[in-house]
């Protein structure tokens, strides 16, 4: 072990470790102080608030209790109901299928774009980037508009008897999925494309030469090579999809609530911060569990 004050060369500077760390800490402090104050500390406060009691007028009473978590687990005065657990479970399912469909649609799209000639390739890519950056309230509203009863999609659905004549195609699960997938598809496509563009086609050809089936060619030659981009895309989709509340709010209504809506309700109309905090903890745990399962199953996961 080196002595703390021995001279070292660091980026061409002759200095000591101690000196460097002193300067480094000085540079580190403004940003880290900010993150501690407004990210880590509020996070800890949220944990504490999740175990206190809500007063009669929505104020916090510093009586510690596990009541909020019990309520989330479905235990009420009148026995057990799975209502809140259902909402949590539904959020996981919606986030999972949103991610899955986004991946399934992104692969062909990425290969399609990568196969365009250089000039139009950038145009196609820009066409994916634009919705990526378009405000999500506008995009969710756009579905709300396009599924209105006056417009062809809802009319068509009414002809086939899926919905009553003159009704909009929301609120229901189908509308939520439409909104969610269109919201998150670019989140998968863009990072995945970065990997597809760099794909080594000779490996794919080698697999084909060795009479690999289409599926094996994909799983053995394409999937491993595109894993880095796919991982980023999956995380960028699954995590925000778990907490999404704009889309289910506009397109799902009260019948198809997700955990995001439930949290928003507690901080809005219900004014029940402790319960809201407890649900947030539940969401946090589910997200971490989801990422962990994925991390185990997939290989190394890189974010950003």
């Amino acid at each position, binding site marked *: 072990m080196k002595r703390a004050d021995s001279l070292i060369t660091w*980026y061409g500077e002759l200095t000591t470790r101690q000196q460097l760390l002193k300067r480094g800490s000085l540079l580190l402090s403004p940003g*880290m102080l900010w993150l501690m104050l407004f*990210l880590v500390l509020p996070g800890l406060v949220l944990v504490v608030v999740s175990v206190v009691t809500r007063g009669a007028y929505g104020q916090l009473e510093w009586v510690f209790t596990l009541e909020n978590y019990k309520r989330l687990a479905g235990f009420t005065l009148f026995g057990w109901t799975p209502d809140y657990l259902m909402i949590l479970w539904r959020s996981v399912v919606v986030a999972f299928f949103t991610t899955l469909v986004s991946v399934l649609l992104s692969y062909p799209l990425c290969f399609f774009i990568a196969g365009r000639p250089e000039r139009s390739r950038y145009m196609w890519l820009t066409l994916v980037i634009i*919705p990526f950056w378009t405000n999500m309230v506008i995009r969710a509203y756009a579905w709300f*508009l396009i599924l209105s009863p006056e417009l062809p999609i809802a009319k068509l659905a009414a002809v086939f008897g899926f919905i009553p004549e003159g009704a909009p195609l929301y609120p229901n699960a189908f509308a939520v999925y439409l909104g969610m997938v269109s919201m998150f598809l670019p989140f998968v496509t863009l990072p995945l494309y970065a990997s597809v563009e760099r794909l080594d086609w000779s490996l794919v050809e080698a697999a084909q030469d060795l009479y690999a089936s289409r599926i094996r060619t994909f799983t053995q030659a394409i999937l491993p090579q595109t894993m880095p981009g796919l991982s980023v895309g999956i995380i960028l989709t699954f995590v925000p999809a778990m907490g999404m509340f704009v889309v289910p709010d506009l397109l799902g209504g009260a019948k198809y609530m997700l955990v995001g809506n439930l949290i928003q309700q507690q901080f809005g109309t219900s004014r029940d911060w402790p319960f809201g905090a407890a649900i947030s903890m539940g969401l946090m745990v589910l997200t971490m569990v989801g990422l962990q399962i994925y991390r185990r199953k997939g290989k190394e996961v890189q974010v950003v």
Partner: protein
Amino acid sequence: MRRQHPLIVAISYLTMAFLYLPLAGVAIFSVNAARRGLVWKGFTLKWYLKLFENDWILEAAWNTLLLAVISTIIATVLGTILAIAMDRFPWRSRTSNFLDIILHIPVVIPDIILAASLVVAFGLLRMASSIFEPGLPNMIIGHITFQIAFVALVVRSRLVAIGSEVEEAARDLFATNWYLLRKVMLPLLMPGIIAGAMLAFTLSLDDFVISFFTAGPESQTLPLFIFAAVRRGVTPQIHALSTLIMLVTVILVVLTERFTRHHEKE
């Protein structure tokens, strides 16, 4: 060029249609003369003109811009310094792992959790100071908090990319710390800093959740205004406003693309 399976082409076109059909719907109804309902009554641009007479919308636009500009400036400064501090000093691996985890929190947790924790924290801070009443200052703080992380990550990847040679050369020529930072590092880092700032700016313009939780009655932004309008009942003005925002997005995206591709070629 590889020949593509027709199925791949078909799925791709359908996917793009799926992404753009709803947006096209909004754009079409923004130039529809009908005051109510979704029946085509002829072309007009009057809804766009009315936007500029609507004080609510003008104020929301001003708030959105103010919020984005202030938070981006602060987050870019803080994030850049943080990236340099994390990358250019001999931290122990435990320290740097810890810093890394903190920096990734805003990226890997759902934003609604950050929003909820800010509501609670501001609620308690309110006992100490009235600055923390819901409103623009709170929103700025919230935005900076997630922007810092993104700026720092972008700038750090640029720091890694430029390597150590130039700085070593500068040191050999007796550059002082300050001179090195000003004349060597910042110019080399500039593309990364600008890219980070643009990302932060767009994230702020785009944000709905953090703003929704921390906004006060006087600090409506455009996304909040649109969200509220949808629940009140939509007017054609909302279509015009949304279309205008989409156009601004398109312009920003194209400019950003030009910028990054220009720097990739260097």
